[in-house]
């Protein structure tokens, strides 16, 4: 998938550095969060003497960011259509508890529970959808009600038992397991399947970029200067390659990362390639114009809240699986982390702007902050303050680059 739109570039290249600064300046909104991510990683890595970018820590970090990343993806679409969903944190916690009860107390098999809870989440998402689309209640209020209700609901269902331990290994693998090491004997110490997946991803990315560039040239659209384009490919290759290499030196790709990537791929496809995606962004860009253009704004609103519910269910299950239990406080502040991830990822509160890939990078930024500060042994109070500052900086950056 493309990291950034190849925005118009006027004349053919003069010098490499001037091209580079110009492309960076013109696409600062797209590249900004990557730059932020690298600065954060670099700073933490030097402050922790290389501990931060170690295989073990990166692997852990990626497992922890999964449940926020999927929420961030869904939240991006909600914000794109000019709404907000504050209920998803405790909805995730509640559905995690439901999952635990279904498996531990009712003894239902995991292949029944997981899809059922996803469907339940999608159905519960229709409730704020109904209040917002049908009754015209502001999403902030409608979902604040959900926030309180699900908070209470978690306490009700865990009243007798307190924390519910989940002992199903298949389910717990979602948050803690890694993909199997096929042909592992061929290269001891390296996770071959992970390397293979990484290699395929790189080849696929380069192929797609080349195809897109050729297409744009065929239509006479402006593309990145050739040397900058090559730099972009090299950069992406190195990034994915290095990440895969580091992970392959530990336990390999985790199931959490695989799930996030699958969700991301589906959402990226829907938002950029389909009629549905275009309609979602049209509703966000101008609901009146969209309605008059034959887009069913109500239907889109229902759908977006419903997918948010389904992703909250996924998030809740990832979190429960990670902890191997459902706790009474699960889901606390998830919604705010997801909203922060979306904003760091470049979504605009005015509607119609924001990418799901951005939300995943945003979630990675927020998770990196938490992980890095934990490694440094920084107190939780300061952690909140620093995360708040980073969120404020992200939005300031967004506003100050909006009219470029």
């Amino acid at each position, binding site marked *: 998938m493309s990291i950034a739109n190849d925005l118009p570039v006027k004349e053919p290249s003069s010098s490499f550095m001037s091209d580079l600064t110009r492309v960076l300046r013109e696409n600062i909104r797209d590249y900004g969060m990557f730059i932020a991510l690298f600065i954060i990683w670099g700073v933490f890595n030097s402050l922790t003497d290389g501990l931060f970018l170690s295989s073990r820590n990166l692997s852990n970090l990626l497992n922890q960011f999964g449940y926020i990343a999927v929420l961030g993806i869904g939240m991006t679409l909600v914000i794109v259509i000019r709404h907000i969903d504050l209920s998803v944190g405790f909805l995730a916690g509640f559905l995690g508890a439901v999952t635990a009860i279904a498996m531990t107390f009712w003894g239902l098999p995991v292949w029944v529970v997981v899809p059922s809870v996803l469907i339940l989440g999608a159905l519960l998402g229709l409730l704020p959808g109904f209040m917002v689309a049908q009754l015209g209640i502001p999403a902030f209020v409608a979902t604040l009600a959900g926030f309180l209700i699900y908070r209470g609901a978690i306490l009700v269902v865990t009243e007798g038992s307190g924390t519910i331990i989940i002992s199903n290994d298949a389910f717990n693998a979602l948050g803690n397991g890694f993909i199997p090491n096929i042909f592992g004997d061929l290269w001891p110490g390296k996770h071959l399947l992970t390397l293979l997946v990484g290699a395929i991803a790189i080849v696929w990315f380069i192929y797609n970029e080349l195809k897109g560039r050729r297409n744009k040239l065929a239509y*006479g659209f402006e593309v990145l200067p050739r040397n900058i384009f090559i730099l972009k490919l090299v950069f992406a290759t190195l990034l994915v390659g290095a990440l895969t290499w580091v992970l392959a030196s530990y336990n390999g790709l985790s199931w959490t990362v695989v799930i996030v990537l699958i969700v991301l791929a589906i959402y990226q496809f829907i938002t950029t390639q*389909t*009629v549905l995606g275009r309609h979602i962004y049209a509703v966000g860009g101008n609901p009146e114009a969209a309605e008059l253009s034959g*887009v069913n704004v109500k239907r889109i609103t229902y759908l977006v809240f419903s997918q948010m519910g389904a992703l909250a269910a996924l998030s809740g299950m990832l979190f429960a699986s990670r902890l191997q239990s459902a706790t009474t406080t699960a889901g606390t502040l998830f919604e705010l982390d997801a909203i922060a991830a979306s904003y760091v990822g470049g979504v605009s509160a005015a509607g*119609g702007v924001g990418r799901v890939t951005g939300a995943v990078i945003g979630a990675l930024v927020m998770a990196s902050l938490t992980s890095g500060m934990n490694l440094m042994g920084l107190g939780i109070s300061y952690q909140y303050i620093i995360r708040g500052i980073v969120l404020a900086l992200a939005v300031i950056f967004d506003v100050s680059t909006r009219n470029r």
Partner: protein
Amino acid sequence: MSDNVILEMRNITKEFPGVKALDNISFAVKQGEIHCLVGENGAGKSTLMKVLSGVYPHGTYSGEIYLNGELQRFNGIRDSEHAGIGIIYQELALIPELTVYENIFLGNEIRKGMRMDWNETIRRASEMLAKVKLDVNPAAKVIELSVGRQQLIEIAKALSKDVRLLILDEPTSALNEDDVDNLFDLMRDLRSNGVTLIMITHKLREIMRIADSVTVIRDGKSIVTLDAAKGEVSEQVMIKHMVGREIDNIYPSRTHKRSEEVVLEVHDWNVFDPVIDRKLLKNSSFNIKRGEIVGFAGLMGSGRTELALSIFGNPAHYKVDGELTVNGQQGHFHHPQEAMNAGVAYVSEDRKRNGLILIQDVRENTTLANLRALASRGVIDSNREIQVANEYKTSLNIKTPTIQQKVGNLSGGNQQKVSLAKWLFVQPNILILDEPTRGIDVGAKFEIYTLMNRLVEQGMSILMISSELPEVLGMSDRVYVVSAGEITGELPIAEATQERIMQLATMN
């Protein structure tokens, strides 16, 4: 500099990234005159006024501004207001839920110590209302007043700040004929009280009525200043300078191919708005035949837009009853999508609010209403989409570097063309155009008229709602006149005159 020049702007150049909006422009206004500023969209009129009023602060442009012979360096609107310059924008800047007196003194509040002095505020507001000859209760909420009255309140607000130079940006674009007369009387009044007025407008007829002098701007340069007293101002001359060429007839002729086949028929149509509890249309009946342009004339707010919307899937959820027959099929539409499927398209009067998605590009806007035609199983064929957008860019002469340009960056005329492209791509056989040329320049108007002719010659039928009588008379085959929610007359074009239409439009 002669001594009765109040304002002189010298050698102003203002650049935006990639565009020179003002190119070494000079502009002078005499004390106590009504000076009209005219030019095509994108010519630089609004930019020039924003430089004058301090919206673009000193230092972001080059050149000098002299007010009463003194060099001015405005760092913001407050500075220019302080110097006696007031500006009233096309989009009114009143707060609908506040009262008239609160609005008049907003940002300029009258205080007694720490507290608001409401009694004095109301007294002074009444004075200002008297000055603009507006008879409303100062305690009324602005939202309850008509657009024409709101405009007068804007002027009252400017007068409360002691303006000596008042700039009006397209003040008549949302006014009906009566309100325009009223506004012009007030402008003459202000002039005799020593206020100097600058009016930006597209409407040459209005310039003929009110201007003392006219400056024509084209491509960021001032082309000519004409003096009405010397008889230099005429529509022909202004158009010639605006477009840089002569346009003999801005309404192109066409070969009439209308048939007697009725494609749309409305019978006993009643529309009721439950939100404001008002009947918008009463017992209206009309029809449209294949290949004709039917003009809908009337005053602003007479119910023509509501009529169109109530036919086009009723997105505002009015209560509608009556018979609708479209292409032989009888029945109401319950969503714009249904109307589109039946071959009806509606191009909104307010392209920015209801027509376009300004943050999306030309391509996305062009294809939005008919994406399904470009998709299989919900996946868009992006190559075909680009082809389609490029075809419309060429055939409608949309002036944009590429179809990747955001629509918000285009001029009004080109935005309107994108709006039209979107609806033509739906391939309707009945096209409803609501004020198709509002706020766009003469050149683009001519292109849109030519396009309309081409479409009806191909067998399309057009329902054109227009408040510009010359446009109605120049383009229609038949005219219906709407007055206060009722169709008060149907005129074949041969019998339609401005006087006859105005008479019918003001019947109720």
